[in-house]
């Protein structure tokens, strides 16, 4: 699952903040977003490489979610324009951006509580005839397509270990399961670019492993992934490229192994556990708990790996 170290280069020239990519899927210029006096995002230039997995990392409040919101049409910038797949999409509404194949998930999960898990999934499918008012009244015009959509949904749910829940209300899912549902739902549309805002937050380690596999799979299927994540283990495991934000600006960019060594990044963000394997860390905490250490303390240790 770990990415090949001999992967082809993604960038042109030196790997500096805002560097050009050989085959960019998103190109953005002069993107700024101010909240009152505070500048949440100030990015002169950013390019996201196509058919690669790019991690967007940075401390809390760095502006990662705000940048996501801008690029997906959920927020309006003070300045800036950008293109997706060579087409200018700045100023386009969120639904139009999604229709072009740039689909996102949210940091604060948005499961549709009083819809069944299956209905949540079906909503993700695009070009559904029955979603038009007139066709909706004529069930025979959409029943066949509905069956296809359902088959696809069930298959994806199985991959995300949610198939047994398909007839339950999404409201009955656990927090982690809702994250999974939202990700699976986004994939129903066969997107070109998937933007995941902290997809693994609250997902247990065993499932994280298999989900990382799925994300790498997405790339194999030709998709591009841009994700925000605080879990450095995940970033190191699957990212081809890392972009580091702090206080609204891009402060570093590069291949994971290189960026993780960058002293500025390490100091500002990564903390002391950056080189350690997640499993090793968990094993150590287990030993401490077994040895009678304060469980609350163990909880603190656990959080290190996320911070």
């Amino acid at each position: 699952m770990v990415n090949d170290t001999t992967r082809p280069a993604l960038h042109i020239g030196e790997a500096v903040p805002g560097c050009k990519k050989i085959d960019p899927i998103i190109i953005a210029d002069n993107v700024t977003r101010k909240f009152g006096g505070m500048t949440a995002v100030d990015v002169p230039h950013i390019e996201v490489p196509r058919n690669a997995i790019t991690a967007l990392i940075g401390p809390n409040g760095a502006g990662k979610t705000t940048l996501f919101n801008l690029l997906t049409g959920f927020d309006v910038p003070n300045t800036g324009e950008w293109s997706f797949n060579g087409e200018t999409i700045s100023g386009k509404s969120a639904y139009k951006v999604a229709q072009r194949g740039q689909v996102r998930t949210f940091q604060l999960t948005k499961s549709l509580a009083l819809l069944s898990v299956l209905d949540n999934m079906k909503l993700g499918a695009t070009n559904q005839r029955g979603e038009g008012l007139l066709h909706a009244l004529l069930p025979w015009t959409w029943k066949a397509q509905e069956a296809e959509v359902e088959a696809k949904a069930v298959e994806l749910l199985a991959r995300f270990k949610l198939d047994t829940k398909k007839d339950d209300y999404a409201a009955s899912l656990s927090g982690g399961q809702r994250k999974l549902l939202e990700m699976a739902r986004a994939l129903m549309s066969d997107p070109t670019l998937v933007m995941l805002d902290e997809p693994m937050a609250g997902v247990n380690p065993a499932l994280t492993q298999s989900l990382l596999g799925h994300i790498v799979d997405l790339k194999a299927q030709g998709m591009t992934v841009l994700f925000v994540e605080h879990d450095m283990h995940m970033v190191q495991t699957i990212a081809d490229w890392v972009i580091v934000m702090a206080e609204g600006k891009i402060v570093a960019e590069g291949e994971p192994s290189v960026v993780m060594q960058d002293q500025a990044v390490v100091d500002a963000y990564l903390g002391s556990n950056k080189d350690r394997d997640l499993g090793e860390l968990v094993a150590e905490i287990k030993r401490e708990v077994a040895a009678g250490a304060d469980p609350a303390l163990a909880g603190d240790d656990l959080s290190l790996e996320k911070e």
Partner: protein
Amino acid sequence: MSSDFTFIWVAVGALFDPITIAYALAALGLALHFGFTGLLNFGQAGFMTIGGYAFAIGAVKLNVGFFPSLLMAIAGAVLFALLLGIPTLRLRADYLSIVTIGAAEIVRLSVRTPEARPLTGGSDGLNGTGASFFALNPIPDTFSINLGPIHYTNDMVWVRLVGWITVIVAALIIWLLVRSPWGRVIKGIREDEDAVRALGKNAFSYKMQVLIIGGVLAGIGVIFAIMPSSLQPDNYGTQTTFFIWAIMLLGGAATIFGPIVGSMIFWATIAITEGFVSLGVKTGVLPITPVQSGQIRYMLVGLALMLLVIFRPQGIFGKKAEARFNG
């Protein structure tokens, strides 16, 4: 003494009354707005006023006949929905509620101003709007039904017949809509509009469609109430909107039969409580004046609604699980 119990027959009649039809359609429209899509429309009475006046003006001022007048009512409701929806449906949900409650009052006050009297009849409203509809009545004059002491003429049967067929057709259309992929989108909007937009659906357009369809139902329904009697602007105030809300919640907000049966129960209950209260006043059991008795019955309705919200928050036809996860 037996004649004092005629209110039982009045209550039975209320189950199928044209007023019940009007409120059933308005509540069905509101269920589509609120129960299925989450739109906070507090101006359903405004849609009734617009539909009622558009129809009445067509019928008695322009004399264009029943079907063109009906089309005018539909067009009026569509325009009203566009007028309310275009500025508010892109904003947060609460803006629609503020605008609809205000707009409904503006409409009511406008049609009843003396300046509008030549067209709307001012505060007196309009009479005789049903003439062209009753002219279409195929039921012979000789036909009539007696329900207890109440006598139903052929015209009274005709308006109820067409009214309830309309209710059934409307219910069928809404039922087809909400169980389709279109219905899935609007329920998604109810749960979280941003999630739906993130999946590539034009939430604004769906909300607009919903506002129009639900508003048109109210605009059509009111016609059945005014044709056999008259159109009175003050019958469609804010109180009407809240009755429609009560009816919808009584039956179950995200249901189809709920608003319809809710309307039947609501109006029958009003008739029964009215009957009991006036009986109590007459026999001296209740130490109140007849004027106060009018207030008492609404207090009883309020009490019934409170009990309903406490013991069956999902309404009569609603699913229990929905209330659980909502709470």
